[in-house]
């Protein structure tokens, strides 16, 4: 099963390599991993997308929690949540037919063309992984020059929040 694990960790150099090292040393899968600072400069937030049996996911969360730099952790897949990924994709757009075709596709997927050259477009798209995958499929390999994806960011819906409590 696919799980999205969110963590808050100390914004220390080396914290990322502890997480990455844990996954490689114990042979866990990483589908994607994103990390950036939060509104609290001392903390960064990481989202890891991983797959494994329930036993393995349980071990992953326990092992992550055990890392001294990890402050808080939640497997957000258990409850209602939102996940988004950003993709920038450079496509071939070197004749009128391709240009209109790409424009149409971008609109259907609610993306935006953010750069135009004589022969290329760069399209910005956010959504779930499946949506980005679908866009790539619709575009077709022959039209794609380059893609860059941010990896998944996830957040629980409603009041449930991953943050430090004042205790």
């Amino acid at each position: 099963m696919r799980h999205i694990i969110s963590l808050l960790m100390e914004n220390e150099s080396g914290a990322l390599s502890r997480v990455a090292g844990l996954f490689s040393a114990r042979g866990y899968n990483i589908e994607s991993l994103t990390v950036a600072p939060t509104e609290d400069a001392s903390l960064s937030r990481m989202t890891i997308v991983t797959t494994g049996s329930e036993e393995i996911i349980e071990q992953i969360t326990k092992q992550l929690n055990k890392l001294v730099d990890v402050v808080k952790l939640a497997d957000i897949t258990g409850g209602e949540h939102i996940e988004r990924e950003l993709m920038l994709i450079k496509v071939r757009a070197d004749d009128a037919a391709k240009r209109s075709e790409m424009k149409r596709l971008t609109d259907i997927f609610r993306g935006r063309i953010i750069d135009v050259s004589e022969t290329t477009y760069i399209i910005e798209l956010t959504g779930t992984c499946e949506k980005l995958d679908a866009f790539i499929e619709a575009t077709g390999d022959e039209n794609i020059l380059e893609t860059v994806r941010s990896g998944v960011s996830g957040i629980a819906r409603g009041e449930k929040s991953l943050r430090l409590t004042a205790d």
Partner: protein
Amino acid sequence: MELTGAEILVRFLKDEGVEYVFGYPGGAVLHIYDALYQQEDVRHILVRHEQGATHAADGYARATGKPGVVLVTSGPGATNAVTGIATAYMDSIPMVVITGQVPTAVIGSDAFQEVDAVGITRPCVKHNFLVKDVKDLAVTLKKAFYIATTGRPGPVVVDVPKNVTDPNIRIPYQYPREVSMRSYNPTIKGHPGQIRRALNLILGAKRPMIYSGGGVILSGADRELTEFTQKLGFPITNTLMGLGGYPGTDKQFVGMLGMHGTYEANMGMHECDVLIAIGARFDDRVTGDVKHFCPQAKIIHIDIDPSSISKTVRVDVPIVGDIKHVLTDMNRELDNSRKRPDKSALEAWWKQIETWRGKDCLRYDRNSDLIKPQHVIEKLYEVTGGDAYVTSDVGQHQMWAAQFYKFKSPYHWINSGGLGTMGFGLPAAIGAKLAHPDADVACVTGEASIQMCIQELSTAMQYMLPVKIINLNNRYMGMVRQWQEFFYESRYSHSYLEALPDFVKLAESYGHIGLRIDKPGDVEGALREAFASKDRLVFLDFITDQKENVYPMIAAGKAHNEMHLSPERELA
């Protein structure tokens, strides 16, 4: 008080109550060595190899329950220490290792003797730090000791660049009495609901078994465990790491379990209906085939590390907490409970266990003309009254020491279980002897293992540490030979030791006493002579039966009821 970084480091160790630092100098730590030179509170023990420093600090820690402290230089100093750090990590031993580092300005430039110590040690430490500013030094050291000694203990590395200990930079110093870390809060108290669920199972058990491990010793909970076990009247087995957590002389003790565990312990595991695992981590040497592990049992597991629970074997009632606290709560609940263990079921269970015990699975040939290694350990036990601190290396001798020396109390059995590091025994004995100068300290070893840290004979001379080395010399890497005999049709590929040194002369050349013993009748006398010599290290080279094997044995991946017993036992 204004101090340099080097002075802060040494002063901090004193304030932290550190008696001994095990180390070896080099460029990156020279400022620290200069500060050590100018004081007498913290004693530095100069080893002969950084691996020896880590094992000696580890032996000190295992013999006392206090953290071991190591100081090594950058580059090769740090890499030499890695084996000892990993050894401590696998057995959850509290240790703080200070590694020198090149100055911050040149980190990352392949500077002379630069290695990424934080990177190299990351997978084998509980945590590690690189100190970038002298202002962070004291508090980082405090965090290191705090992390190393609390929760599930483990080694912590503090990498200190040379400029952080610059003799020209002084800053105010105050001992940081406490630290708190929002990201690190081990659970100590067990959940009352879980404790109650566990007690229900325990009091309903018909064929219970207590399986306790190294966590009991790390928690200092031997008394609570003994009370718990005796209150219930249940049989108890210990892992290799748990020996001494319950008196090995008591009749409720059924011996070690696992690959080389006793028949009664392993059969008891296989047949039990409630298993109470206490500070043990279901290692594969213990479980064998996990699919057939305790097939009939409901399992309770007390452990401070949630990731130890349900890692390899799913448990029914997990209790996360410190054993000392959890067992104290359980003992109190038991006293208050009106329910009692099922007496008649227990009687029947004990009867069954006694039949298994009757197999006498550790029996060996006592009439041999050759020295049997088991006999040496039995005599060692007698001669030392069962009170010695016994360290060991890795191999058959380690198993015989575990099987035949009946440890009465914790901290006395000191061996590398998780990593199985040959070379551990002698430096560990040095650490134990420093911790307990008036106690007997024996290092049970083999002719292969002892050569991996033999240089520490020199350290033992320098500091006058009269440990006794019990070399069970079978001229083979016996444990390897045994596997080759059983599983490779006796093709003894590279397990015979040619060109062995004359250990007697070797010991003498370091200034110690060496004795060679090759007749069974001389074993006891030699041991008595060695232990009577209170101020000298004696190297006892016992020429033992080359082909003796360790029994019982469960082949890797087999179940507890699939034990091989010794030929002597089969004959009986």
